[in-house]
């Protein structure tokens, strides 16, 4: 009996020890919905990778939480009068994690690498108008353009600068070096990424000595892990149905901000009934936006209006609105010459729960006005391949994120030659507007007028049925201070050095 008791004691002690290891006050644990593919800003295209990259490395300029461009590794910048040269004044006294100084040569190296076709960098298209990069001196670098491109700065904000003396290292993608507030210690893929504070950080010594990213793919699990105190904070993928409960709980803080993206119905504008603009307008009237936002998304996001997020200055509030109205849809269909049972459409989407639900709702609404919608939920690879490489679909549901300027939000999607114009929409007037818009200074009234008109055309002709604007939701314990949710998830942790854990 006594022996059994002492065993019990031993076990209890060990349990106590192990559970104490859980919550450490000098380590900030961030949850993430997906693992980074890699950590090389020149090669990655996904948000989870950039969430982590932006803690280790930094761009020349960055978007703050109000989506203004603010200095980062560059302190100042200006366009020449002919708009063909963009010159950056670099921050002085910045060092890489290995102690080497950061200079203009690193900037030139990074962008030259991306522009070299031999490297097949996925984002090369973003900088296609850059002709040459010139190192003026150690702290000044100039980008020479082949033709004016007003939104180049936004694209430059998307990529962090890579150190020239490490960039060609074979394992750079797994073991990067940067100028950011934290440096990489270890990375166990699909599990955790451990970082430590860069005490020489130019923005001040980070408050938290250690930082850990944990990858938890299942949304419900991530929330449970948060409530159990195993992670301190995460942004994105907060289960909508739980928001209300979490907001009412004094132990947690829910932060929300309008996002940079939206979900939409993409129409194949070249085939069948949907080539008729009235039918597309009818479909848009069948989207129960209020219902979807309020019940499917539990109030996260807002009803979709057009292609430009509401927070951007180019947003045009005066475009036509397609309120949910089966009656108007029926009238439009009648005008177009279609009666009940005349139209049969095939709708595709991938296995994303929100999109699957939207598909079901639309299917139900359409059937009420006599349109038969067949829904196909495809595995992601097959789905993308279908909409990108074929026109074997009538409708698809997809989303955009990172719509940080009107050019990026419209030219790829709606220009006749746009790379992502999957629905083959074409309007000559719109093409002219979009081509012209990218040569006009972004802060001018002309720019706002051009894109205002462009939005009106897109909304009137409905190549997309806009469903909802995204909203970013961040969730943290009350003991976490100095953090604000970022409208673009890739920048969520760029100011992580200010965060503290008051436990």
């Amino acid at each position, binding site marked *: 009996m006594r022996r059994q008791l002492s065993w019990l004691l031993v076990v209890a002690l*060990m*349990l106590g*020890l*192990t*559970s104490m*290891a*859980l919550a450490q006050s000098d380590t900030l644990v961030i949850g993430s919905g997906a693992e980074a*593919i*890699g950590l090389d800003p020149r*090669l990655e*295209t*996904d948000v989870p990778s950039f969430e982590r990259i932006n803690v280790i490395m930094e761009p020349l300029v960055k978007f703050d939480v109000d989506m203004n461009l603010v200095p980062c590794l560059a302190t100042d910048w200006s366009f020449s009068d002919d708009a063909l040269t963009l010159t950056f004044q670099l921050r002085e006294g910045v060092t890489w994690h290995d102690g080497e100084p950061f200079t203009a040569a690193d900037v030139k190296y990074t962008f030259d690498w991306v522009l070299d*076709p031999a490297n*097949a960098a*996925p*984002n*090369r*298209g*973003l900088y296609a108008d850059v002709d040459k990069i010139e190192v003026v001196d150690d702290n000044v670098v100039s980008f020479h353009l082949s033709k004016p491109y007003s939104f180049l700065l936004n694209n430059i904000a998307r990529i962090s600068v890579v150190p020239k003396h490490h960039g060609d290292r074979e394992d750079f*993608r*797994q073991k990067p070096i940067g100028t950011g507030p934290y440096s990489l210690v270890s990375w*166990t*893929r*699909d*599990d*955790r990424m451990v970082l430590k504070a860069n005490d020489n950080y130019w923005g001040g010594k980070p408050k938290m000595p250690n930082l850990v990213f*944990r*990858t*938890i*793919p*299942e949304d*419900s*699990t*991530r929330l*449970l*892990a948060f*409530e*159990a105190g*195993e992670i301190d904070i995460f942004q994105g993928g907060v289960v909508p149905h739980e928001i209300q409960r979490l907001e009412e709980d004094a132990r947690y803080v829910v932060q929300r901000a309008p996002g940079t993206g939206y979900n939409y119905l993409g129409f194949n504008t070249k085939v069948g009934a949907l080539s008729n603009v009235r039918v597309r307008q009818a479909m848009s009237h069948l989207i129960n936006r209020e219902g979807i936002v309020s019940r499917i998304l539990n109030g996260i996001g807002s009803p979709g209006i057009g292609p430009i997020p509401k927070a951007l200055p180019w947003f045009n509030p005066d475009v036509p609105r397609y309120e949910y109205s089966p009656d108007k849809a029926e009238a439009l269909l009648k005008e177009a010459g279609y009666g009940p049972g005349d139209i049969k459409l095939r709708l595709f989407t991938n296995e994303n729960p929100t999109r699957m639900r939207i598909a079901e709702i639309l299917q139900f609404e359409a059937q009420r006005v006599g349109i038969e919608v067949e829904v196909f939920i495809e*595995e*992601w*690879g*097959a789905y*993308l*391949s*279908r909409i*990108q*490489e074929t026109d074997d679909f009538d409708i698809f549901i997809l989303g955009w994120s990172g719509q940080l300027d009107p050019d990026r939000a419209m030219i*790829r999607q709606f220009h006749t030659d746009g*790379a*992502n114009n999957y629905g083959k929409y074409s309007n000559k007037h719109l093409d002219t507007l979009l081509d012209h818009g990218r040569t006009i200074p972004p802060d001018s009234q002309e720019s706002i007028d051009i894109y205002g008109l462009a939005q009106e055309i897109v909304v009137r002709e409905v190549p997309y049925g806009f469903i909802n604007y995204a909203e970013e939701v961040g969730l943290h314990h009350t003991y976490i201070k100095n953090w604000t949710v970022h409208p673009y998830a890739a920048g969520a942790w760029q100011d992580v050095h200010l965060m503290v854990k008051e436990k």
Partner: protein
Amino acid sequence: MYRYIIRRLIQMVPLLIGISILVFLLVHLSPGDPIRMLLGEDATEEDVERLNAIYGFDLPLHIQYFRWLSNALRGNLGVSIRQGIPVTTLIFERMGATLELAIVSVIIAILLGIPLGIVAAVKRGSVWDYLSMIVALLGVSTPSFWLALMLLSHVALKVEFLPMFGRDGSVFKGLWILVTQFRADELLTGLRYVLLPAFSIGASMMAIITRLTRSSLLEVLGKDYIRTARAKGLGDRIVVLKHALRNALLPVITIVGIQFGAMLGGAVVTETVFAWPGVGRLIVNAISQRDFPIIQGGVLMMAIIFTMVNLAVDLSYALVNPRIRYD
């Protein structure tokens, strides 16, 4: 014995080639383009074409296959298209987690399944029989992801000892440390993390084991030598455990071997729910990103492990039943 092992190993070759052809065809004939997935939304057509040429995707299928095969035979499973890391690295860094999960699930299934089966067989027809069968059947009737979510929200959230997700420590390493240094902390940490995922995978196997133990035990108990042993006056418990169970275990071991393969691959969903860093998740992500080398290499590795486990199972027959000999 050795000749038997060698013969079995030789038999593996056509099997593995068959599997690699099957995976290859499945992967290449299904829609989806790895290069477009890699380059993302801003890709230019020229880059797509050039990368297709670099990866050899523009070659005829059989040439692509033989290229892959000749590399694979030299131990080179290629490089992940998406991540640029050798496939063997990606697989081996996760193999420990996958094997640990599978083995612990099997152990849990055996530890729970065999006693339940014994009770059911010995108390045949009683309430205990039905009760243990119902418990066992619940295991096989519950979809594993649902069971996993229920365990998380009803057990893990309330029991602080059990974490919600992830992996820490290692059970195998922990056992080694316990034996060599008499410290249990590593083992305990490992166990805390592996327990729930292992249980949610092992539940269905437990059901199968319970059922098999019960039926084969009943069969053995009807045999003459057991009757003789009883007639000699040996106590019931000894008869059952010593004589009957030993013979009844054969089919149980067989099924453990066959199910082990299902455990390795079927853990996909459980790995996702518990954020367990295993090979299943790697392969499923690779399927959605069309990262061909990972899919091909991963499935091949799983098949190799599966066939090795089954070889071990066949060999272990000889241990349980000395009358079986291999030559």
